[in-house]
């Protein structure tokens, strides 16, 4: 099996999950909402403050996690369990299995980032924000941070496959 097949299987698995982590969906939805709110807030010039940027990053992470978390963990009773543990005895190529998830993660973050960035610029162009050059790239910073955060989280979870 090649990398493409692993990616395809991951996508199919996620689509068909009956127990598609509803708690995560709710958190993600709230994150999305807050994220959108801050994009709008940015458009009205309320964003050139550090604490707002921090919230902005958190919202981005939560929103992108909506897609990514079900690929690396599942809910079991009250706990979340790593999917890597579930595949410990399956005949998988571990490297490709992990790489497929990484590719999906980065792809989604980038796809999520592009429209947000466009909206951001449109919003900023309509206001008199003083820090346009900095705030204009907040979505990019948020995306990079989100990817780094998810990568770190995945590294922790992957240990259950490698050990």
């Amino acid at each position, binding site marked *: 099996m090649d990398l493409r*097949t692993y990616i395809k*299987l991951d996508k199919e698995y996620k689509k068909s999950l009956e127990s598609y982590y509803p708690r995560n969906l709710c958190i993600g939805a709230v994150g999305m909402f807050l994220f959108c709110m801050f994009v709008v807030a940015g458009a009205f010039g309320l964003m050139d403050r550090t604490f707002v940027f921090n919230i902005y990053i958190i919202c981005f992470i939560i929103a992108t996690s909506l897609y990514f978390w079900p690929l690396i963990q*599942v809910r*079991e009773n009250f706990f979340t369990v790593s999917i890597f543990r579930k*595949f410990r*005895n399956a005949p998988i190529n571990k490297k490709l299995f992990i790489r497929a998830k990484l590719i999906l993660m980065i792809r989604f973050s980038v796809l999520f980032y592009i429209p947000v960035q466009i909206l951001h610029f449109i919003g900023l162009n309509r206001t008199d924000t003083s820090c346009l050059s900095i705030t204009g790239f907040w979505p990019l910073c948020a995306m990079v941070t989100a990817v780094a955060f998810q990568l770190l989280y995945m590294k922790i979870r992957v240990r259950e496959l490698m050990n």
Partner: protein
Amino acid sequence: MEKALEFNHVSLIWPDFKIDDVTFSLEKGYIMGLVGYNGAGKTTLFRLMENRYRNYSGEILVDGYDCRTQEAKVKNITAFISDEQIFFFEESIKRNAEIYCPYYSVWDWDSFYKYLDMFEISGETKIRNLSRGTFLKFQLAFAVAHHPVLYAMDEPTAGFDPVFRYDFLRIIQNIVAEENASVLFSTHNTSDLDKIADYITMIDNGRILFCKDVETLRDEYRLISGDNRLFKISGLFEKGRWNR
């Protein structure tokens, strides 16, 4: 004869425990029972086969494939059956099979459903709703579906009543006969060994004490029961040790 499983001089050293030069093999179509006290190293041997510990010396081969370097190939032809929860708890039996089957080179839905029917398990039942015994049977159905060369079972019958154990062992025998597969199973129950094992391997403190076929063991050892006084009179039993 082709070998389904080979342990060649396998050693693993931890600060408080070691697997010491373990060497044995199992031919295709045979059943081997692995016995030993708690903490003797039985589960460690299974984990070594699963490639969960890599810093061992020697080699472990399943159907000629090295467990360390050809892990995916080994797992494709080995069915690991244990109490460990490696399936998706919140998903149905059928959905679990659908998730895992693309990763196996061979998957036989007919066999899967045949065994599920035989065990009277519905494919729509969620794994979390299965009892321990039914979960064990489901694992067997799942294993048969990918036609493994080797079934590795870590204490599969522990904690079950004799009727269930008898049924389970009979099923194992049928599978071995039908599939020409091999079985390595660990147990504390010597009556299980009596019923189905062709070979018995005894491990103690990380070392293999013996690996012999059941007939040889029966020739070499006898079980004598009776009052200690009788043994003393006959001179069979002295200072708490057998004296042949």
